């Protein structure tokens, strides 16, 4: 504890029950929420893999061969599989939340939720095809 005085909002009663760190396991909605937030850890993991891949490509063919060999180890295959499932979960929950996060109006009328979510899924599919097309060409 620091000894500095700090501002605390007025509170008539400070009694709080301790909540277990595992509070979110008691309920499916809470578990879904925490798993969705945890998906961000795998998002960061893959961002780092991408950095690592770029560095390997820049260093030369040997470094790149080493990178691809490392990705073929069981450890990385398992990590990538788990990360892929979490990233899929992130994508699906993100697109399904889009209609609530963004209200789109066309000529004063609100677009129905399924149109907003659906356009996200269509965009997802098209972009995935373009990226796969570029990477599978060479």
């Amino acid at each position, binding site marked *: 504890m620091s000894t500095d005085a700090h501002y605390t909002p007025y509170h008539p009663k400070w009694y709080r029950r301790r909540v277990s760190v595992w509070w979110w396991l008691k309920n499916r909605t809470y578990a879904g929420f925490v798993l969705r*937030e945890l998906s961000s850890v795998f*998002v960061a993991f893959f961002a780092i893999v991408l950095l690592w891949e770029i560095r390997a490509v820049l260093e030369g063919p040997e470094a790149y061969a080493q990178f*691809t060999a490392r990705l073929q180890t069981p450890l990385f295959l398992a990590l990538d599989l788990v990360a892929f499932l979490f990233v899929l979960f*992130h994508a699906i929950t*993100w697109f399904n939340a889009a209609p609530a996060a963004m209200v789109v109006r066309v000529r004063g009328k609100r677009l129905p939720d399924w149109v907003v979510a659906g356009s*996200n899924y269509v965009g*997802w599919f098209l972009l995935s095809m373009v990226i796969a097309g570029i990477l599978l060409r*060479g």
Partner: protein
Amino acid sequence: MARPITPLLWMSFSAGGTIAALLFPIHLFLTGLAFPLGWLDAPSYESLRGLLQHPLTRVYLFVLISLPLFHWAHRFRYILYDGFQLYHLTRSIAALCYGAAAIGAAVAACLLWNVA
């Protein structure tokens, strides 16, 4: 956390979340599973090197890496507060998470800037 930058952090959270949702599944599927397992033919070293040479690819990769890192920072800091009840560490956790994301973005910028 200083108030004026809160909306900026929130925007980077939502932009990064959108990019991670739209683009990460296919990249992760190809790079992490389909290529290493031999389901699909991986691009040759020369073609990847060629792709990296293009400025558009480098801008794309910078955005693809940096914004999702800020998305991670935003979510992860709330996991630490709410999940582990570390409310008294709010400021240091925020500094640590956004700092880590900023370092990742800087590394990406350095790597991509110096492509010869």
